Protein backbone atom coordinates (compact mmCIF):
# COMPACT_ATOMS: atom_id res chain seq x y z
CA UNK A 1 0.00 0.00 0.00
CA UNK A 2 1.29 3.44 -0.85
CA UNK A 3 2.04 5.77 2.01
CA UNK A 4 -0.53 8.46 2.73
CA UNK A 5 0.47 11.48 0.67
CA UNK A 6 -0.28 14.89 2.13
CA UNK A 7 1.03 18.34 1.49
CA UNK A 8 4.11 19.16 3.51
CA UNK A 9 2.42 22.09 5.20
CA UNK A 10 -0.66 20.16 6.26
CA UNK A 11 1.51 17.33 7.53
CA UNK A 12 3.59 19.72 9.61
CA UNK A 13 0.52 21.44 11.07
CA UNK A 14 -1.13 18.14 11.89
CA UNK A 15 1.99 16.96 13.58
CA UNK A 16 2.43 20.05 15.73
CA UNK A 17 -1.22 19.92 16.79
CA UNK A 18 -0.80 16.28 17.77
CA UNK A 19 2.42 16.73 19.69
CA UNK A 20 0.94 19.64 21.64
CA UNK A 21 -2.02 17.51 22.65
CA UNK A 22 0.21 14.56 23.47
CA UNK A 23 2.34 16.76 25.69
CA UNK A 24 -0.81 17.09 27.80
CA UNK A 25 -1.35 13.32 27.68
CA UNK A 26 -4.22 13.53 25.23
CA UNK A 27 -4.92 12.24 21.74
CA UNK A 28 -7.08 13.61 18.94
CA UNK A 29 -9.78 11.01 19.56
CA UNK A 30 -9.74 11.61 23.31
CA UNK A 31 -7.82 8.50 24.32
CA UNK A 32 -4.92 8.45 26.75
CA UNK A 33 -1.52 7.33 25.41
CA UNK A 34 -1.93 3.77 26.63
CA UNK A 35 -5.59 3.28 25.69
CA UNK A 36 -6.67 0.97 22.90
CA UNK A 37 -9.71 1.73 20.80
CA UNK A 38 -12.58 -0.76 21.33
CA UNK A 39 -11.62 -4.24 20.09
CA UNK A 40 -14.33 -6.37 18.47
CA UNK A 41 -13.63 -9.99 17.61
CA UNK A 42 -16.00 -12.36 15.82
CA UNK A 43 -14.99 -15.93 15.01
CA UNK A 44 -16.38 -18.54 12.63
CA UNK A 45 -17.32 -15.94 10.03
CA UNK A 46 -16.17 -18.04 7.05
CA UNK A 47 -17.65 -21.50 7.27
CA UNK A 48 -15.54 -22.81 4.36
CA UNK A 49 -12.35 -22.07 6.33
CA UNK A 50 -10.96 -24.38 9.02
CA UNK A 51 -11.05 -21.34 11.28
CA UNK A 52 -11.71 -17.66 10.79
CA UNK A 53 -12.02 -14.39 12.62
CA UNK A 54 -12.99 -10.83 11.88
CA UNK A 55 -11.31 -8.26 14.10
CA UNK A 56 -12.23 -4.59 14.27
CA UNK A 57 -10.11 -2.10 16.20
CA UNK A 58 -11.56 1.37 15.78
CA UNK A 59 -12.17 1.60 12.06
CA UNK A 60 -9.50 -0.91 11.14
CA UNK A 61 -11.02 -4.17 10.02
CA UNK A 62 -9.46 -7.45 8.93
CA UNK A 63 -10.55 -11.01 8.28
CA UNK A 64 -8.25 -13.96 8.79
CA UNK A 65 -8.99 -17.42 7.45
CA UNK A 66 -7.18 -20.65 8.29
CA UNK A 67 -6.97 -23.54 5.87
CA UNK A 68 -5.36 -26.76 7.05
CA UNK A 69 -4.11 -28.76 4.09
CA UNK A 70 -1.52 -31.49 3.65
CA UNK A 71 1.95 -31.05 2.25
CA UNK A 72 5.55 -32.17 2.21
CA UNK A 73 7.79 -31.11 5.11
CA UNK A 74 10.98 -29.15 4.55
CA UNK A 75 13.98 -31.46 4.20
CA UNK A 76 15.65 -29.98 7.31
CA UNK A 77 12.52 -30.32 9.49
CA UNK A 78 10.97 -33.64 8.47
CA UNK A 79 9.20 -33.90 11.83
CA UNK A 80 7.33 -30.59 11.73
CA UNK A 81 4.14 -29.33 10.13
CA UNK A 82 4.14 -26.12 8.12
CA UNK A 83 2.84 -22.65 8.90
CA UNK A 84 2.34 -20.03 6.19
CA UNK A 85 1.02 -16.55 6.98
CA UNK A 86 0.04 -14.24 4.16
CA UNK A 87 -1.55 -10.80 4.21
CA UNK A 88 -3.10 -8.63 1.56
CA UNK A 89 -4.17 -5.06 2.13
CA UNK A 90 -7.13 -5.21 -0.23
CA UNK A 91 -7.43 -2.30 -2.65
CA UNK A 92 -10.88 -1.61 -1.19
CA UNK A 93 -9.34 -1.02 2.24
CA UNK A 94 -7.92 2.42 1.60
CA UNK A 95 -7.59 5.04 -1.12
CA UNK A 96 -3.85 4.35 -1.08
CA UNK A 97 -3.92 0.57 -1.41
CA UNK A 98 -3.40 -0.86 -4.86
CA UNK A 99 -3.99 -4.23 -6.51
CA UNK A 100 -0.95 -6.36 -7.10
CA UNK A 101 1.42 -8.68 -5.27
CA UNK A 102 2.09 -7.77 -1.61
CA UNK A 103 4.42 -4.79 -1.30
CA UNK A 104 7.11 -4.43 1.36
CA UNK A 105 4.59 -3.16 3.92
CA UNK A 106 2.27 -6.13 3.48
CA UNK A 107 5.24 -8.51 3.49
CA UNK A 108 6.57 -7.00 6.73
CA UNK A 109 3.08 -7.19 8.25
CA UNK A 110 2.69 -10.88 7.39
CA UNK A 111 6.21 -11.78 8.50
CA UNK A 112 5.98 -10.00 11.86
CA UNK A 113 2.62 -11.65 12.61
CA UNK A 114 4.05 -14.98 11.41
CA UNK A 115 7.05 -14.65 13.74
CA UNK A 116 4.78 -13.88 16.69
CA UNK A 117 2.94 -17.17 16.08
CA UNK A 118 5.98 -19.20 15.18
CA UNK A 119 8.43 -18.01 17.81
CA UNK A 120 5.93 -18.19 20.68
CA UNK A 121 5.51 -21.85 19.72
CA UNK A 122 1.78 -21.25 19.81
CA UNK A 123 1.36 -24.21 17.44
CA UNK A 124 3.00 -27.47 18.38
CA UNK A 125 4.17 -28.22 14.86
CA UNK A 126 5.63 -31.55 15.96
CA UNK A 127 2.04 -32.79 16.33
CA UNK A 128 1.16 -31.83 12.75
CA UNK A 129 2.98 -34.76 11.18
CA UNK A 130 1.14 -37.47 9.25
CA UNK A 131 4.24 -39.40 8.23
CA UNK A 132 7.66 -38.12 9.17
CA UNK A 133 9.62 -36.80 6.23
CA UNK A 134 6.75 -37.40 3.83
CA UNK A 135 3.42 -35.88 4.76
CA UNK A 136 2.56 -33.17 7.24
CA UNK A 137 -0.24 -30.70 7.77
CA UNK A 138 0.25 -27.25 6.32
CA UNK A 139 -1.53 -24.47 8.18
CA UNK A 140 -2.24 -21.56 5.83
CA UNK A 141 -3.40 -18.36 7.45
CA UNK A 142 -4.51 -15.70 5.01
CA UNK A 143 -5.44 -12.21 6.03
CA UNK A 144 -7.58 -9.81 4.01
CA UNK A 145 -7.42 -6.26 5.31
CA UNK A 146 -10.83 -4.66 4.66
CA UNK A 147 -10.44 -1.17 6.06
CA UNK A 148 -7.29 0.66 7.10
CA UNK A 149 -7.29 3.03 10.04
CA UNK A 150 -3.98 2.40 11.75
CA UNK A 151 -2.48 -0.44 13.78
CA UNK A 152 -2.71 -3.13 11.14
CA UNK A 153 -0.13 -5.13 13.08
CA UNK A 154 -2.28 -5.79 16.15
CA UNK A 155 -5.55 -6.08 14.26
CA UNK A 156 -4.03 -8.65 11.93
CA UNK A 157 -2.27 -10.45 14.74
CA UNK A 158 -5.43 -10.80 16.84
CA UNK A 159 -7.40 -11.99 13.82
CA UNK A 160 -4.79 -14.64 12.99
CA UNK A 161 -4.57 -15.80 16.59
CA UNK A 162 -8.35 -15.92 17.03
CA UNK A 163 -8.78 -17.83 13.78
CA UNK A 164 -6.17 -20.37 14.88
CA UNK A 165 -7.68 -20.72 18.36
CA UNK A 166 -11.06 -21.65 16.90
CA UNK A 167 -9.88 -23.74 13.94
CA UNK A 168 -10.83 -27.38 13.48
CA UNK A 169 -9.27 -29.60 10.87
CA UNK A 170 -9.84 -33.05 9.42
CA UNK A 171 -7.27 -35.69 10.36
CA UNK A 172 -5.56 -37.70 7.64
CA UNK A 173 -3.93 -41.09 7.67
CA UNK A 174 -1.76 -42.94 5.24
CA UNK A 175 -3.49 -46.18 4.32
CA UNK A 176 -1.73 -48.52 1.89
CA UNK A 177 0.62 -45.72 0.84
CA UNK A 178 -2.26 -43.37 0.00
CA UNK A 179 -3.38 -40.33 1.92
CA UNK A 180 -6.89 -40.72 3.30
CA UNK A 181 -9.00 -38.01 4.93
CA UNK A 182 -10.81 -39.05 8.11
CA UNK A 183 -14.20 -37.74 9.07
CA UNK A 184 -13.52 -36.49 12.58
CA UNK A 185 -12.18 -32.98 13.10
CA UNK A 186 -10.08 -31.68 15.91
CA UNK A 187 -8.65 -28.39 17.10
CA UNK A 188 -5.05 -27.45 16.30
CA UNK A 189 -2.43 -28.34 18.93
CA UNK A 190 -2.04 -24.91 20.55
CA UNK A 191 -0.12 -23.91 23.64
CA UNK A 192 -0.17 -20.16 24.20
CA UNK A 193 -1.69 -16.89 22.93
CA UNK A 194 0.93 -14.58 21.48
CA UNK A 195 -0.41 -11.05 21.72
CA UNK A 196 1.22 -8.14 20.00
CA UNK A 197 1.19 -4.56 21.23
CA UNK A 198 2.05 -1.84 18.76
CA UNK A 199 3.33 1.53 19.86
CA UNK A 200 4.00 4.70 17.96
CA UNK A 201 6.48 7.37 18.93
CA UNK A 202 5.22 10.86 18.09
CA UNK A 203 7.58 13.55 19.23
CA UNK A 204 8.65 12.37 22.68
CA UNK A 205 5.51 10.46 23.49
CA UNK A 206 4.83 6.79 22.99
CA UNK A 207 1.22 5.78 22.38
CA UNK A 208 -0.36 2.38 21.79
CA UNK A 209 -2.75 1.45 18.99
CA UNK A 210 -2.06 4.40 16.67
CA UNK A 211 -4.74 5.52 14.21
CA UNK A 212 -4.01 6.15 10.54
CA UNK A 213 -3.70 9.86 11.31
CA UNK A 214 -1.18 9.17 14.05
CA UNK A 215 0.80 6.78 11.86
CA UNK A 216 0.99 9.45 9.17
CA UNK A 217 2.98 11.72 11.50
CA UNK A 218 4.71 9.22 13.79
CA UNK A 219 8.48 9.00 13.95
CA UNK A 220 8.73 5.30 14.56
CA UNK A 221 6.68 2.23 15.28
CA UNK A 222 7.42 -0.60 17.67
CA UNK A 223 5.60 -3.91 17.96
CA UNK A 224 6.38 -6.27 20.82
CA UNK A 225 4.61 -9.59 21.17
CA UNK A 226 4.34 -11.47 24.45
CA UNK A 227 3.07 -14.97 25.14
CA UNK A 228 0.62 -16.10 27.80
CA UNK A 229 3.45 -16.21 30.37
CA UNK A 230 4.39 -12.60 29.70
CA UNK A 231 7.60 -13.59 27.91
CA UNK A 232 8.62 -11.59 24.88
CA UNK A 233 8.49 -13.67 21.71
CA UNK A 234 8.74 -11.19 18.83
CA UNK A 235 9.68 -7.60 18.23
CA UNK A 236 9.91 -5.23 15.30
CA UNK A 237 10.75 -1.58 15.04
CA UNK A 238 9.47 0.18 11.91
CA UNK A 239 9.74 3.53 10.13
CA UNK A 240 12.61 5.92 9.66
CA UNK A 241 12.70 7.17 13.25
CA UNK A 242 14.33 6.03 16.46
CA UNK A 243 13.56 5.00 20.03
CA UNK A 244 15.77 5.96 22.95
CA UNK A 245 17.24 3.17 25.08
CA UNK A 246 14.81 4.06 27.89
CA UNK A 247 11.82 4.04 25.58
CA UNK A 248 12.80 0.53 24.47
CA UNK A 249 12.87 -0.69 28.06
CA UNK A 250 9.54 0.84 28.98
CA UNK A 251 8.01 -0.43 25.72
CA UNK A 252 8.78 -3.94 26.91
CA UNK A 253 6.81 -3.27 30.10
CA UNK A 254 3.91 -1.70 28.20
CA UNK A 255 3.77 -4.65 25.83
CA UNK A 256 3.43 -7.08 28.70
CA UNK A 257 0.74 -5.07 30.46
CA UNK A 258 -1.42 -4.17 27.43
CA UNK A 259 -0.76 -7.59 25.88
CA UNK A 260 -2.28 -9.27 28.94
CA UNK A 261 -5.34 -6.99 28.75
CA UNK A 262 -5.95 -7.76 25.09
CA UNK A 263 -5.24 -11.44 25.60
CA UNK A 264 -8.20 -11.49 27.96
CA UNK A 265 -10.45 -10.22 25.18
CA UNK A 266 -9.18 -12.97 22.90
CA UNK A 267 -9.64 -15.59 25.62
CA UNK A 268 -13.21 -14.51 26.21
CA UNK A 269 -14.18 -14.72 22.56
CA UNK A 270 -12.39 -17.95 21.78
CA UNK A 271 -12.79 -19.77 25.06
CA UNK A 272 -9.11 -20.74 25.01
CA UNK A 273 -7.85 -21.12 28.56
CA UNK A 274 -4.03 -20.97 28.33
Amino acid at each position, binding site marked *: MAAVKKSLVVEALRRSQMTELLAKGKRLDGRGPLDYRPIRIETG*VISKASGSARVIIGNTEVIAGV*KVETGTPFPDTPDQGLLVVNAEVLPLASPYAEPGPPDEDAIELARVVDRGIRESQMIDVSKLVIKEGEKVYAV*FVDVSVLNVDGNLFDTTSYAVVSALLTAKYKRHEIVDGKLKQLEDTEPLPLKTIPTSVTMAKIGDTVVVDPTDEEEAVMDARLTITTDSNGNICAGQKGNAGTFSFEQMQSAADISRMKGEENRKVIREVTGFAN
Partner: protein
Amino acid sequence: MTALINEQGLRHDGRRIEDLRPIKIEVGILKNANGSAYIEFGKNKIIAAVYGPKEVHPKHMALPDRAVLRCRYHMSPFSTDTRKNPAPSRREIEISKVVREALEPAIMINDYPRTAIDVFLEVLQSDGGSRCAGINAASVALADAGINMRDLVSACAAGKVGGQVVLDLDDTEDKEGQADVPVAIMPNFDQVTLFQLDGILTQEEFKKAFGFALGGCRKLYQLQKEALMKKYFGHGEPIVEENE
Protein backbone atom coordinates in the same frame (compact mmCIF):
# COMPACT_ATOMS: atom_id res chain seq x y z
CA MET B 1 -24.97 -38.44 -3.34
CA THR B 2 -28.50 -37.19 -2.96
CA ALA B 3 -30.52 -36.49 -6.11
CA LEU B 4 -30.29 -32.85 -7.17
CA ILE B 5 -34.09 -32.75 -7.46
CA ASN B 6 -36.24 -35.21 -5.51
CA GLU B 7 -39.65 -36.69 -6.24
CA GLN B 8 -41.38 -33.76 -4.58
CA GLY B 9 -39.62 -31.44 -7.03
CA LEU B 10 -37.45 -30.04 -4.25
CA ARG B 11 -33.78 -29.29 -4.72
CA HIS B 12 -30.96 -30.70 -2.58
CA ASP B 13 -31.21 -27.73 -0.19
CA GLY B 14 -35.02 -27.85 -0.01
CA ARG B 15 -35.71 -25.04 -2.49
CA ARG B 16 -38.29 -25.24 -5.22
CA ILE B 17 -37.42 -24.83 -8.89
CA GLU B 18 -37.81 -21.09 -8.97
CA ASP B 19 -36.67 -20.18 -5.44
CA LEU B 20 -33.73 -17.93 -4.69
CA ARG B 21 -31.31 -18.72 -1.88
CA PRO B 22 -31.53 -16.46 1.21
CA ILE B 23 -30.14 -13.03 0.37
CA LYS B 24 -29.02 -10.16 2.60
CA ILE B 25 -27.68 -6.83 1.36
CA GLU B 26 -26.12 -4.15 3.58
CA VAL B 27 -25.10 -0.73 2.29
CA GLY B 28 -22.20 1.45 3.42
CA ILE B 29 -20.24 -1.03 5.49
CA LEU B 30 -16.69 0.26 4.86
CA LYS B 31 -15.41 3.55 6.28
CA ASN B 32 -12.77 4.46 3.73
CA ALA B 33 -14.55 3.65 0.48
CA ASN B 34 -16.73 6.28 -1.21
CA GLY B 35 -19.44 3.66 -1.47
CA SER B 36 -19.73 0.08 -0.32
CA ALA B 37 -22.07 -2.85 0.14
CA TYR B 38 -22.01 -6.34 1.58
CA ILE B 39 -24.05 -9.17 0.17
CA GLU B 40 -24.77 -12.64 1.45
CA PHE B 41 -26.27 -14.72 -1.34
CA GLY B 42 -26.57 -18.31 -0.21
CA LYS B 43 -23.11 -19.01 1.16
CA ASN B 44 -21.56 -16.23 -0.92
CA LYS B 45 -20.17 -13.44 1.25
CA ILE B 46 -18.97 -10.57 -0.88
CA ILE B 47 -17.87 -7.01 -0.22
CA ALA B 48 -18.16 -4.37 -2.93
CA ALA B 49 -16.45 -1.02 -2.67
CA VAL B 50 -16.26 1.99 -4.94
CA TYR B 51 -13.55 4.61 -5.03
CA GLY B 52 -14.07 7.59 -7.28
CA PRO B 53 -14.57 9.57 -9.37
CA LYS B 54 -10.87 10.26 -8.81
CA GLU B 55 -7.73 11.28 -10.66
CA VAL B 56 -6.33 8.79 -13.15
CA HIS B 57 -2.77 7.53 -12.81
CA PRO B 58 -0.94 7.40 -15.12
CA LYS B 59 -2.56 10.48 -16.63
CA HIS B 60 -2.43 9.36 -20.26
CA MET B 61 -4.95 6.63 -19.37
CA ALA B 62 -7.62 9.28 -18.75
CA LEU B 63 -10.34 9.74 -21.37
CA PRO B 64 -11.37 13.24 -22.47
CA ASP B 65 -15.08 12.55 -22.66
CA ARG B 66 -15.80 10.05 -19.95
CA ALA B 67 -14.65 8.23 -16.85
CA VAL B 68 -12.51 5.10 -17.00
CA LEU B 69 -14.36 2.34 -15.19
CA ARG B 70 -12.07 -0.24 -13.62
CA CYS B 71 -13.11 -3.40 -11.88
CA ARG B 72 -11.39 -6.08 -9.84
CA TYR B 73 -13.16 -9.27 -8.85
CA HIS B 74 -10.97 -11.13 -6.38
CA MET B 75 -11.35 -14.15 -4.13
CA SER B 76 -9.75 -14.23 -0.71
CA PRO B 77 -7.55 -17.33 -0.32
CA PHE B 78 -9.87 -18.73 2.37
CA SER B 79 -13.04 -18.22 0.30
CA THR B 80 -12.98 -21.59 -1.44
CA ASP B 81 -13.02 -25.23 -0.37
CA THR B 82 -9.33 -25.67 -1.02
CA ARG B 83 -7.11 -22.64 -0.49
CA LYS B 84 -7.01 -20.32 -3.49
CA ASN B 85 -3.69 -18.90 -4.58
CA PRO B 86 -3.94 -15.14 -3.90
CA ALA B 87 -2.59 -14.17 -7.35
CA PRO B 88 -5.39 -13.37 -9.82
CA SER B 89 -6.39 -16.41 -11.88
CA ARG B 90 -7.49 -16.31 -15.52
CA ARG B 91 -11.03 -16.89 -14.26
CA GLU B 92 -10.84 -13.82 -12.00
CA ILE B 93 -9.47 -11.72 -14.84
CA GLU B 94 -12.32 -12.74 -17.14
CA ILE B 95 -14.96 -12.14 -14.46
CA SER B 96 -13.47 -8.73 -13.67
CA LYS B 97 -13.98 -7.86 -17.34
CA VAL B 98 -17.55 -9.09 -17.71
CA VAL B 99 -18.58 -7.50 -14.40
CA ARG B 100 -17.17 -4.18 -15.56
CA GLU B 101 -19.04 -4.49 -18.84
CA ALA B 102 -22.21 -5.42 -16.94
CA LEU B 103 -22.03 -2.28 -14.78
CA GLU B 104 -20.83 0.28 -17.32
CA PRO B 105 -24.10 0.61 -19.31
CA ALA B 106 -25.85 1.81 -16.13
CA ILE B 107 -23.24 4.39 -15.16
CA MET B 108 -23.37 7.88 -16.62
CA ILE B 109 -19.67 7.86 -17.31
CA ASN B 110 -19.86 10.96 -19.50
CA ASP B 111 -20.68 12.92 -16.35
CA TYR B 112 -17.12 12.32 -15.09
CA PRO B 113 -14.63 13.03 -17.87
CA ARG B 114 -10.91 12.52 -17.14
CA THR B 115 -11.57 10.53 -13.96
CA ALA B 116 -11.46 6.93 -12.86
CA ILE B 117 -14.11 4.97 -11.01
CA ASP B 118 -12.79 1.86 -9.28
CA VAL B 119 -15.06 -1.00 -8.34
CA PHE B 120 -13.60 -3.69 -6.10
CA LEU B 121 -15.33 -6.98 -5.38
CA GLU B 122 -13.84 -9.18 -2.69
CA VAL B 123 -15.29 -12.63 -2.35
CA LEU B 124 -14.80 -13.61 1.28
CA GLN B 125 -16.70 -16.84 0.81
CA SER B 126 -17.74 -18.26 -2.52
CA ASP B 127 -20.72 -20.30 -3.55
CA GLY B 128 -22.33 -20.76 -6.97
CA GLY B 129 -23.32 -17.49 -8.59
CA SER B 130 -20.64 -15.27 -7.07
CA ARG B 131 -20.37 -13.03 -10.15
CA CYS B 132 -24.09 -12.26 -10.06
CA ALA B 133 -24.03 -11.70 -6.31
CA GLY B 134 -21.04 -9.41 -6.79
CA ILE B 135 -22.76 -7.37 -9.51
CA ASN B 136 -25.76 -6.79 -7.24
CA ALA B 137 -23.48 -5.55 -4.47
CA ALA B 138 -21.34 -3.45 -6.81
CA SER B 139 -24.37 -1.74 -8.29
CA VAL B 140 -25.61 -0.79 -4.82
CA ALA B 141 -22.12 0.38 -3.81
CA LEU B 142 -22.00 2.64 -6.89
CA ALA B 143 -25.29 4.17 -5.84
CA ASP B 144 -23.96 4.52 -2.27
CA ALA B 145 -20.93 6.37 -3.69
CA GLY B 146 -23.29 8.87 -5.30
CA ILE B 147 -22.28 7.99 -8.86
CA ASN B 148 -24.90 9.06 -11.39
CA MET B 149 -26.67 5.99 -12.77
CA ARG B 150 -29.37 5.37 -15.34
CA ASP B 151 -30.59 2.36 -13.42
CA LEU B 152 -29.39 -0.23 -10.96
CA VAL B 153 -27.93 -3.42 -12.40
CA SER B 154 -29.55 -6.56 -11.05
CA ALA B 155 -28.15 -10.02 -11.64
CA CYS B 156 -29.20 -13.61 -11.18
CA ALA B 157 -28.40 -16.94 -12.80
CA ALA B 158 -30.68 -19.70 -13.98
CA GLY B 159 -29.59 -23.09 -15.21
CA LYS B 160 -30.37 -26.74 -15.63
CA VAL B 161 -30.07 -29.26 -12.82
CA GLY B 162 -31.21 -32.88 -12.72
CA GLY B 163 -32.80 -32.39 -16.12
CA GLN B 164 -34.87 -29.37 -15.10
CA VAL B 165 -34.52 -25.66 -15.60
CA VAL B 166 -34.07 -23.97 -12.21
CA LEU B 167 -33.32 -20.55 -10.78
CA ASP B 168 -30.13 -19.59 -8.93
CA LEU B 169 -27.71 -22.53 -8.75
CA ASP B 170 -25.58 -23.06 -5.67
CA ASP B 171 -22.10 -24.60 -5.71
CA THR B 172 -23.27 -28.20 -5.76
CA GLU B 173 -25.81 -27.55 -8.49
CA ASP B 174 -23.27 -25.60 -10.49
CA LYS B 175 -20.74 -28.45 -10.38
CA GLU B 176 -23.13 -31.34 -10.87
CA GLY B 177 -25.74 -29.63 -13.01
CA GLN B 178 -26.00 -29.40 -16.79
CA ALA B 179 -25.97 -25.67 -17.43
CA ASP B 180 -25.53 -22.27 -15.80
CA VAL B 181 -26.75 -18.98 -17.30
CA PRO B 182 -25.74 -15.86 -15.37
CA VAL B 183 -27.65 -12.76 -16.48
CA ALA B 184 -27.61 -9.11 -15.43
CA ILE B 185 -30.13 -6.51 -16.52
CA MET B 186 -31.07 -2.88 -16.16
CA PRO B 187 -34.59 -3.57 -14.84
CA ASN B 188 -36.14 -0.30 -15.96
CA PHE B 189 -34.82 -0.55 -19.49
CA ASP B 190 -35.34 -4.27 -20.20
CA GLN B 191 -31.72 -4.49 -21.31
CA VAL B 192 -29.25 -7.30 -20.71
CA THR B 193 -25.83 -6.12 -19.51
CA LEU B 194 -24.31 -9.50 -18.66
CA PHE B 195 -24.92 -12.82 -20.30
CA GLN B 196 -22.89 -15.98 -20.11
CA LEU B 197 -23.80 -19.58 -20.67
CA ASP B 198 -22.05 -22.82 -19.77
CA GLY B 199 -23.48 -26.23 -20.47
CA ILE B 200 -26.03 -27.67 -22.82
CA LEU B 201 -29.56 -26.34 -23.28
CA THR B 202 -32.08 -26.95 -26.03
CA GLN B 203 -33.50 -23.82 -27.59
CA GLU B 204 -36.67 -24.28 -25.47
CA GLU B 205 -34.70 -24.78 -22.28
CA PHE B 206 -32.67 -21.73 -23.14
CA LYS B 207 -35.79 -19.59 -23.46
CA LYS B 208 -37.13 -20.90 -20.19
CA ALA B 209 -33.85 -20.43 -18.35
CA PHE B 210 -33.48 -16.92 -19.70
CA GLY B 211 -37.00 -16.13 -18.50
CA PHE B 212 -36.25 -17.55 -15.06
CA ALA B 213 -33.08 -15.45 -14.85
CA LEU B 214 -34.98 -12.28 -15.74
CA GLY B 215 -37.47 -13.08 -12.97
CA GLY B 216 -34.61 -13.58 -10.53
CA CYS B 217 -33.06 -10.26 -11.56
CA ARG B 218 -36.34 -8.49 -10.83
CA LYS B 219 -36.45 -9.98 -7.34
CA LEU B 220 -32.90 -8.86 -6.75
CA TYR B 221 -33.82 -5.39 -7.87
CA GLN B 222 -36.39 -5.19 -5.07
CA LEU B 223 -33.81 -6.33 -2.52
CA GLN B 224 -31.28 -3.79 -3.79
CA LYS B 225 -33.83 -0.99 -3.47
CA GLU B 226 -34.79 -2.10 0.03
CA ALA B 227 -31.16 -2.15 1.11
CA LEU B 228 -30.57 1.37 -0.18
CA MET B 229 -33.83 2.55 1.35
CA LYS B 230 -32.83 1.11 4.69
CA LYS B 231 -29.59 3.01 4.73
CA TYR B 232 -30.83 6.31 3.39
CA PHE B 233 -34.38 6.49 4.80
CA GLY B 234 -34.40 4.08 7.69
CA HIS B 235 -36.61 1.00 7.83
CA GLY B 236 -39.99 1.09 6.08
CA GLU B 237 -39.63 4.49 4.42
CA PRO B 238 -40.74 4.72 0.80
CA ILE B 239 -37.83 4.93 -1.62
CA VAL B 240 -37.60 7.72 -4.17
CA GLU B 241 -36.41 6.13 -7.38
CA GLU B 242 -34.55 8.99 -8.92
CA ASN B 243 -32.73 6.99 -11.51
CA GLU B 244 -35.68 5.46 -13.23
